[in-house]
């Protein structure tokens, strides 16, 4: 198993390198340091100011090959190597917004994100598995029919409508929760309940329907017929035989999402004023804070790879047919 994980990490490295390459191309090839500087300092900034800002940030170096530098530095003293090096060593530098270290910001921002995403994830998973089990148990009856109909209705509503609608209902009309904002300590419960509710509801339709499809597919398998022919009762067939088979894709699918919980939810955090990583990304975007965006994308990519590895491992743990080669 150790060698397997090691090999999976080795596979992930080229992909991570690819992400570094993409961010480099996105932020340096498609936009020049000058445009970045102008966006930060304003259109009317003097040429000298811009030049000194570019120099201070080290953005005046050539892309790949520095003819002016001596020796090995011809290759290393370039934008590209700086970019790669900053990512590899997690030295993301300082934010363009307030000149504070990006890494610290990311770490402090991950906390609020988790307090929001973790409950959403757990409650969402629990509810969608329960409902999909109910629909699978009552498959081809009216409960299943109208249930899936409701799921499609829920799926067809864009998340912003959920956010705006529930904010209006619970905060403006009923005045139960504050519209948005954040507080430290236990006081944050007041602020976090509504976003969690919205997060769970918004994701429910799609995931119930997805899980139901998986379970319905299992009910047509031969082993179900065998189990019935043994005289097992319907609930044992569903909760033992079908559920364990269906849980393999469902759980591994959920494991994939775990690392992303750190990333928060871009839109919901922004709407509700939760100071998490999602709203950090939006803020960075609106203030053209490229190093911050770069850092968030990079960390997201690493988390994705961790998710993939965790998925593989969880497959091997729950499915007896899968063994580590």
């Amino acid at each position: 198993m150790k060698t397997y994980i090691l090999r999976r990490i080795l596979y992930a490295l080229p992909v991570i390198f690819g992400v570094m390459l993409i961010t480099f191309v996105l932020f340096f090839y498609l936009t020049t340091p000058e445009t970045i500087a102008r966006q930060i300092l304003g259109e009317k900034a003097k040429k000298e100011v811009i030049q000194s800002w570019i120099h201070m940030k080290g953005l005046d170096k050539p892309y790949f090959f520095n003819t002016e530098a001596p020796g090995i530095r011809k290759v290393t003293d370039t934008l590209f190597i700086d970019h790669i090096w900053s990512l590899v060593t997690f030295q993301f530098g300082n934010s363009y917004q307030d000149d504070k270290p990006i890494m610290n910001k990311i770490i402090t921002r991950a906390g609020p994100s988790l307090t929001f995403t973790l409950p959403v994830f757990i409650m969402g998973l629990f509810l969608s598995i329960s409902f999909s089990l109910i629909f699978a148990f009552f498959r081809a009856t009216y409960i299943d029919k109208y249930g899936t109909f409701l799921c499609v209705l829920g799926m067809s509503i864009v998340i912003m409508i959920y956010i705006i609608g529930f904010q209006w209902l619970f905060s403006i009309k009923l005045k139960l929760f504050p519209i948005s904002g954040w507080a430290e300590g236990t006081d944050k419960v007041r602020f976090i309940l509504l976003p969690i509710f919205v997060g769970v509801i918004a994701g429910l339709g799609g995931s119930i329907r997805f899980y139901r499809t998986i379970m319905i597919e299992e009910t047509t398998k031969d082993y179900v017929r065998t189990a019935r022919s043994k005289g097992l009762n319907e609930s044992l067939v569903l909760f033992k035989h079908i559920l364990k088979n269906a849980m393999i894709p469902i759980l591994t699918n959920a494991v994939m999402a775990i690392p992303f919980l750190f990333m928060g939810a871009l839109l919901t955090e922004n709407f509700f004023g939760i100071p998490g990583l999602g709203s950090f990304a939006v803020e960075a975007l609106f203030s053209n804070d490229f190093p911050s965006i770069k850092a968030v994308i990079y960390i997201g990519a690493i988390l994705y790879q961790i998710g993939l590895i965790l998925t593989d491992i969880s497959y091997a743990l729950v499915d007896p047919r899968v063994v580590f080669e």
Partner: protein
Amino acid sequence: MLEYYINDILRSLFVLVIIGGGIYTVLRMNRNRIWHDVFRQIWSVPIARISFGVICLYLFVFLLDSISYPLFKEVNKKHVFVNSRTLLEVIYTPAREESYSAPMAKYQFTDKKMENKGIHPAGTNINGEDVLMNAFKGIKVAFTIGGLTTLIILPIGIFFGLIAGYFGKGADTTVTYVYSTLACIPEILLLIALMNIFGNGVLQLCIALGITSWVGLCRIVRGETMKQKNMEYVQSARALGQSHFRIIFKHILPNVMHIILITSILRFSGLVMAEVILSYLGLGVPPEIASWGIMIDQSRGELARDPMVWWNIITAFSFMFILILSVNFFGDTIRDVLDPRTRVKGVKA
């Protein structure tokens, strides 16, 4: 002057050709016995018939809004181009007000010369624009984004998916490397970054959405091709000495077509939703184009006003919801018919 005419005619023609091509393809497919059977089965589901009708209605408005002619004004005995006028604007010409007016409000600040004294069925927004008209205009944006992006994704996704799935080895490694690298970047962040670089605009948005969403199609086509590759019909075609090109496009492509169809229809609604989200972030279409995303974005503060301004968001939401719902139901029916795995059925006797 001529160039404006040519410009409008070309635009209108482009849309007509795309829609005509779509209808022609469906009719051609209908001649095939298998597809004819599939269409018949889809048609036998009432909800699919209703959804199809609704989608056709939207398409009709889209068509009206896409056929345009240039409008000129005579200034100093010279024709000066004012704007393009679409058929939709000819049929429905609401007046412009100064600011908000409630639904069913009468035209108030009508231009003296304008004869029609009508009402704003869905009120007007903060700029005095007719909300219903904006919602109608949003249909064009939605279809342009959904359609154009699909046109961008399809060739890329299908081609690379087929190549990777069929040839395996190096081709597969390369394609999977490229798409797993792209998939690794959180989609919304990549979209934001791309839109930041491209700037606002419908075409830019389509390209950005195309870059992020060809991955899904490619992955599905690749997986299905790998399955089909080992089927007897491919083996026998190979044994008969047919070229790889012929096997891929003549034999495998028709057999993965149903999956492509299902994926693209169900993705369409995702694309329409993506426009709304990006428009909220200020990264979608330019704010002067009326789109549902922009309408919803505008209405954020409106619900807190007193008296509440609800018509903007409700109209935009209803237009969007009905379209997405219809597309989802229609796509679902197609999937149920084409993909036997999701069908609720018993043991085969």
